[in-house]
């Protein structure tokens, strides 16, 4: 591989620990959302995007939400979204993708203040509340444009119908942001237990 490309990749993806955490977030984000797909607005893409931006930063701010959505969206297209035509699905997907990108970018702005401390978990959890509402409002615009307006409904109708779903989404964020946040921050600060053990020799080496 070209040296410059390799250097850019190293800078963008970070060290081995950061890459492992990025992949872990993608796995947890995709798995959680697929497992909970019958519970409306209970998902783990939001938390994975927020934590990716605020803890890992770099390219992971974009890679994590995009990779999770690349895995999850086709599964949802065949399930709950199967009732919609392809142009409706594409329209909704645009709002979902840009919404989660926004969450990741806001998380990235928090990164300097996020360390392995209770205050940081509290900060992430607190920020997740207005972010969840903002994300839902943004995707409501998509639902209005592609579903409600063709049915003769107003944007206000969409907002009214959204209220219980936003409550479910807030509950999801309040549960998963502290869980994911504390777990990933701990791994980020302390490293992987097995990796640490593997790098420490059992006995001092006799030879250099």
């Amino acid at each position, binding site marked *: 591989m070209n040296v410059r490309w390799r250097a850019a990749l190293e800078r963008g993806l970070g060290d081995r620990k950061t890459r492992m955490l990025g992949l872990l977030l993608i796995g947890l984000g995709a798995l959680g959302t697929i497992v909970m797909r019958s*519970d409306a607005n209970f998902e783990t893409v939001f938390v994975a995007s927020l934590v990716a931006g605020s803890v890992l930063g770099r390219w992971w701010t974009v890679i994590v939400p995009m990779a999770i959505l690349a895995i999850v969206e086709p599964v949802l297209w065949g399930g709950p979204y199967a009732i919609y035509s392809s142009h409706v699905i594409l329209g909704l997907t645009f709002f979902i993708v840009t919404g989660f990108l926004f969450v990741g970018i806001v998380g990235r702005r928090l990164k300097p203040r996020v360390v392995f401390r209770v205050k940081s978990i509290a900060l992430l959890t607190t920020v997740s509340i207005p972010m969840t509402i903002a994300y839902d409002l943004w995707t409501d615009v998509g639902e209005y444009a592609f579903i409600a307006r063709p049915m003769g409904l107003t944007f206000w109708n969409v907002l009214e119908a959204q209220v219980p779903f936003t409550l479910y989404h807030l509950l999801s964020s309040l549960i998963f942001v502290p869980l994911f946040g504390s777990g990933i921050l701990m791994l980020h600060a302390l490293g992987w237990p097995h990796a640490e053990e593997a790098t420490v020799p059992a006995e001092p080496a006799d030879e250099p």
Partner: protein
Amino acid sequence: MVARMSERLQAVVFVVVLGLAIAGLYAYIQVSQPPPVTASGVVRVSLLIDGAAWTISYGPVETWNNTAYSLLLEASTTLGFPVQAVHYSIPNGVFVTSINGTTNGQDGRYWQFWVDGAYPQVGADHVALADGDTVTWRFITNQGGNA
């Protein structure tokens, strides 16, 4: 001067506040879920399905399928037409996506239902039928109008 809380105390306070917030929100969500319908016998209930290009009539019948959804399934079994639906646990309810091969989204139309002309605000499996009710399913573009 206010003493700084130790990290451990901060964690305890955070967990308590978070637990209370989650418990309160969860309790509200559970309370706001539509109650399940208890099975009971109903008489003279009818079903009319208007698929825009076709119609299906069923009943009046006497049955223990006393929800708008279970009556639809009964008609589906008796008359031999397919019904597809998505089941949600939160919010609890069923969302009918296709009846007799006519699927939501075609020409911007969606399946909606009325019970004796009233447009319910809960899933079809949470609407209890009374004696003499007529359930109407229509494949239409606008919402909430008269059946």
